[in-house]
C-alpha cells in the first residue's frame, strides 16, 4: 500500500512537471481549425496561409489594413506594362543557412502549377503570370499575360521556398506528403518548423538566423480548438495565450476578465443575400402566379429596405459587425462613397415599394443559409426572414450544414440565399467580378454569381477596370461599377464581419483585415 502510494505520488509529481506552465517565451494559440497541409502551395485556406507566412515569406506582403509593402523584394518597377522587375533584399538566408537567390523565386512560382490534387489550387494567384525568369542573382522578372495591376496582391499569397531544400524526384520537387512531415520545409520566415501532429499541436521555433526583427517568442504552439466556447474557456483559464474568433456569447466574459482582452479588427468579410434574377420559375417562391418578383427592381429595393442592419449588428452579432451598404468595406479600393453606409431600414417604404411593384399582398419565399459557416449565419438569416415577413414577404429559412448548403447553391436550389465573400485583393473589382459579373464559366467571370445577375454595363466597367494600370482611373471605374450595382439592388449586402482575437491582457496584436493570426506579430506590451 505504501509502495503504491509513493509510486502514485511520484508519478503525479512527474505528470505535474510535464504539464507545468510553459516557459515565458512560449506562445500558445487556440486556432479555430488546423491547416489541411503544411505545403505552402497545396490549398488556399486561411489556416494554411497563416502557418506558411510564419515559416516562409512572399516577395511582398500586406500590412494589417491590406496595403502592400516590400518583404523579400525590396523594390520593383515596371520594365513594360506587362514586365515587372523585382529586386530581392540583400543578405536574406533560408533557415538552413543558404542565401536567397532569384533561382528560389523562379523555382517557387514554377512549382505552383505542378502541385497535384489541390482542393483550391494556388494557380488562382498565378493565372495572370506568363513567365518568371531570373535576370541575375537578385533580380526576378515576372511577365504577365496582359497589363495586370493586381500582380503584387497575388504575390502576397505565394511564399518563396528554398530550391535546394524543396527539390525532389517528383515533378513538383518535394511532394505535399513530404512537406507535411517537415521534409524540405525550409523558408526565410521568422519561425522554423518543429513538429505537427494532425488534430493536435503544431509547434514552431524561432528562426535564429532570421534577417529581420526577431519575434518575441522562442516557441509557438498552434492548437486547433474547433469549439469556440472551448477556446474562450481555455483562454480564461490561462491554458492558451491567444484565441482566434471570439464567439459573440463570450465577449462580455472575456472583456470582464482582468487577465484577458479582445482585439477586433477592421471590417472584413461581407455577408450578403443574393437573389435569383434569371429564372421565371424560381424554387421557393410562391404566390406569384409563376412569376419571379426578384426580377423587379422595386421588389429588390423593398427587400433591401426591410432589413434593419443596425439591429442585426447589435443584437445578433453582438456588435462584431458593421452594417454594409456595398460589397466592399468603406476603406476598400473602389467602394462607391455613396454606398459606404447603407440606407436606414424603412419597413413602411418597403411595403409601399412592394405595392408599386404589384405585390401589395406579398408573396412567399425560402431563404437558404449555411449553418455554422459564418458567424451566427443561420440566426442572421432568421432575423432577415422575420424582417421580410413583416413587410408581407412570408419567408421560410432553409438552413443547412455548409457542404449541403454549397451543393444546393451551386445547383441553384435557392431563389434567395445568404452567403459571404472574403476579399483578399483589397480591391472591390474582384468581389464584383465574382458575385455580379455575368456568369461565364470559361472566362472565369461571375464564378460565385448563383443569382445570375447580369448587366452588360457593369461587365464593361469591370473589364475596363481590370486592364487599367492607373490607380486613380481604375478607382473611378470601380466606384462607378459599385454604385451601378448597388443602386440596382443587384445583391443585398447585410454587414461586414469584424474579426476578433482573444488575448492574454499583457499581449498585443494588431487585428488584420485578412483575418490571419500571425504569431510573429504578437508582442508583449511594455
Amino acid at each position, binding site marked *: 500500500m505504501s509502495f503504491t502510494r509513493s509510486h502514485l505520488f511520484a508519478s503525479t509529481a512527474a505528470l505535474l512537471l510535464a504539464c507545468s506552465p510553459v516557459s515565458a517565451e512560449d506562445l500558445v494559440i487556440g486556432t479555430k481549425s488546423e491547416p489541411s497541409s503544411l505545403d505552402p502551395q497545396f490549398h488556399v485556406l486561411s489556416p494554411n496561409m497563416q502557418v506558411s507566412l510564419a515559416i516562409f515569406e512572399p516577395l511582398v506582403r500586406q500590412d494589417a489594413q491590406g496595403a502592400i509593402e516590400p518583404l523579400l523584394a525590396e523594390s520593383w518597377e515596371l520594365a513594360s506594362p506587362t514586365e515587372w522587375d523585382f529586386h530581392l533584399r540583400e543578405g536574406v538566408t533560408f533557415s538552413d543557412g543558404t542565401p536567397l537567390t532569384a533561382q528560389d523565386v523562379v523555382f517557387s512560382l514554377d512549382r505552383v502549377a505542378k502541385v497535384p490534387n489541390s482542393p483550391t489550387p494556388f494557380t488562382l494567384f498565378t493565372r495572370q503570370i506568363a513567365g518568371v525568369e531570373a535576370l541575375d542573382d537578385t533580380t526576378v522578372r515576372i511577365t504577365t499575360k496582359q497589363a495586370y495591376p493586381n500582380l503584387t496582391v497575388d504575390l502576397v499569397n505565394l511564399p518563396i521556398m528554398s530550391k535546394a531544400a524543396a527539390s525532389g524526384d517528383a515533378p513538383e520537387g518535394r511532394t505535399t506528403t513530404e512537406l507535411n512531415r517537415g521534409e524540405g520545409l525550409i523558408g526565410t520566415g521568422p519561425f522554423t518548423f518543429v513538429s505537427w501532429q494532425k488534430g493536435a499541436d503544431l509547434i514552431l521555433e524561432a528562426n535564429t538566423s532570421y534577417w529581420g526583427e526577431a519575434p518575441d517568442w522562442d516557441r509557438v504552439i498552434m492548437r486547433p480548438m474547433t469549439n469556440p*466556447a472551448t477556446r*474562450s*474557456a481555455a483562454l480564461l483559464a490561462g491554458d492558451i495565450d491567444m484565441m482566434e474568433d471570439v*464567439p*459573440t*456569447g*463570450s*465577449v*462580455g*466574459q472575456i472583456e470582464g476578465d482582468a487577465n484577458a482582452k479582445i482585439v477586433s479588427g477592421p471590417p472584413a468579410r461581407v455577408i450578403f443575400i443574393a437573389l435569383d434574377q434569371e429564372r421565371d420559375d424560381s424554387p421557393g417562391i410562391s404566390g406569384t402566379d409563376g412569376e419571379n418578383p426578384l426580377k423587379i427592381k422595386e421588389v429588390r429595393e423593398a427587400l433591401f429596405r426591410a432589413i*434593419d442592419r443596425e*439591429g*442585426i449588428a447589435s*443584437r*445578433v452579432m453582438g456588435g462584431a459587425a458593421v452594417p454594409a451598404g456595398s460589397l466592399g468595406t468603406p476603406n476598400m479600393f473602389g467602394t462607391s462613397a455613396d454606398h459606404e453606409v447603407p440606407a436606414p431600414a424603412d419597413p413602411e417604404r418597403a411595403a409601399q415599394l412592394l405595392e408599386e411593384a404589384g405585390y401589395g399582398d406579398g408573396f412567399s419565399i425560402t431563404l437558404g443559409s449555411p*449553418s*455554422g459557416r459564418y458567424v451566427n449565419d*443561420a*440566426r442572421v*438569416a*432568421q*432575423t432577415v*426572414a*422575420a*424582417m421580410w*415577413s*413583416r413587410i408581407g414577404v*412570408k*419567408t*421560410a*429559412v*432553409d*438552413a*443547412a*450544414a455548409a457542404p*449541403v448548403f454549397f451543393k444546393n447553391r451551386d445547383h441553384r436550389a435557392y431563389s434567395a440565399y445568404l452567403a459571404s465573400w472574403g476579399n483578399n485583393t483589397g480591391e472591390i473589382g474582384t468581389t464584383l467580378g465574382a458575385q455580379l459579373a455575368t456568369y461565364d464559366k470559361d472566362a472565369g467571370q461571375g464564378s460565385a454569381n448563383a443569382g445570375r445577375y447580369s448587366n452588360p454595363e457593369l461587365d464593361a466597367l469591370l473589364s475596363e477596370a481590370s486592364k487599367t494600370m492607373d490607380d486613380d482611373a481604375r478607382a473611378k471605374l470601380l466606384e462607378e461599377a459599385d454604385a451601378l450595382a448597388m443602386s440596382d439592388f443587384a445583391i443585398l449586402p447585410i454587414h461586414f464581419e469584424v474579426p476578433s482575437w482573444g488575448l492574454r491582457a499583457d499581449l498585443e496584436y494588431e487585428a488584420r483585415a485578412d483575418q490571419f493570426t500571425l504569431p510573429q506579430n504578437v508582442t508583449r506590451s511594455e
Partner: protein
Amino acid sequence: MTVQPTSADRPARTRADTPFRRIVRQFFENPLAVFGLIILVGLTVPSFLAPWVAPQNPYDIGTLDIFDSQLPPLSTSSSGDITYWLGTDGQARDVLSAILYGMRTSLIVAFSAVAGALFIGTAVGLIAAYFGGVVDAILMRTVDIQLSFPAILVALVLLSVLGQGIDKVIIALIVVQWAYFARTARSSAIVERNREYVLAARSLSLGSRRIIFRHMLPNTMPPLIVIATIDLAHAITAEATLSFLGIGVPVTEPSLGMLIANGFEFMMSGEYWISLFPGIALTLIVLGINLVGDHLRDILNPRNAQ
C-alpha cells in the same frame, strides 16, 4: 395516454372479469405512475392548446422584434404588451411560447413516428410469425440488418438525403424504429400461433388475413403497447438530438431539441434560460412517459397479473 388502457383491455377481456377496471385501479395504486401521468397531462394539454394559451406565436416570425432578443425571465416586451415569463431567445422568441409550440412539434413527431413504426413493425412481425419459413427468414434478417446500424446514424443519413422538415423527421424515425416492433410482435405472435384458438380458426379454414388481424393481433398487443410507450420517450429524445444537430425541423419552427441547441451558445455568457427551460421541459416529459410506461409494463405483464 388514456387510450392505452382501453385498447389494452381487449385481449384481456376473455380472461378477467373487469380487466379495464383492474388496470386503472392498479395504475392509480402507484404514486410514481400517477406523478408521471400528472406531469404528462400538465405538459401535453397546454402544448396542444398552445395557439390559445401561449403569450406569443413564435412561428409567426413577422411579429418577432430583434430588439427583444436575449431578455432575461420576467422581462416586458418593448411594445409593453407581453411579459416574457421565461425570457426570450436569440431570435426574440418568448421562451415559454417557444417551449409550448416546440413541445407540440416534439409530441406530434414522436406520436406519429411511433404510431407509424408500430403499424409497420406489427404487420411485419405478425406476417413473419404466421407464415414462418422463408418469409420469416427474409423479414427477420432485414430486421437484424436494420438493428445492426446505430439508430441515430441511420436517421442522420436519411435526413441528409431527404432534407429538412417535420414529415421527413417522422419518416426517418419510423425507419429507425419499426424493427423493434417487428421483433417483439413476431415473438409474441409465435406463442399465439400455436394456441388452440388459432388452430380452431385455421380448422374453420378462415383466411390468413382474418386469422392474423382479427385473432392473433389483439393477443399480441400488450407487449407492443408497453414498447410503444417507452419508444415514445426514445422518439422524443431522438427528434431532439436530430434537431440539436441542426438537421431536423426548420429553424424557424424549433422543437425542444432545437431550442436547447439555440441556447447552447448563450450559456457561456450567462444567458442560461434559453437552454435551461426547454431542457427541463424535455426532461420532464421524458420522465413522465417513462414513469407511466414502466408501470404500464408491470400491470400488463401477465405474470404479474395472476
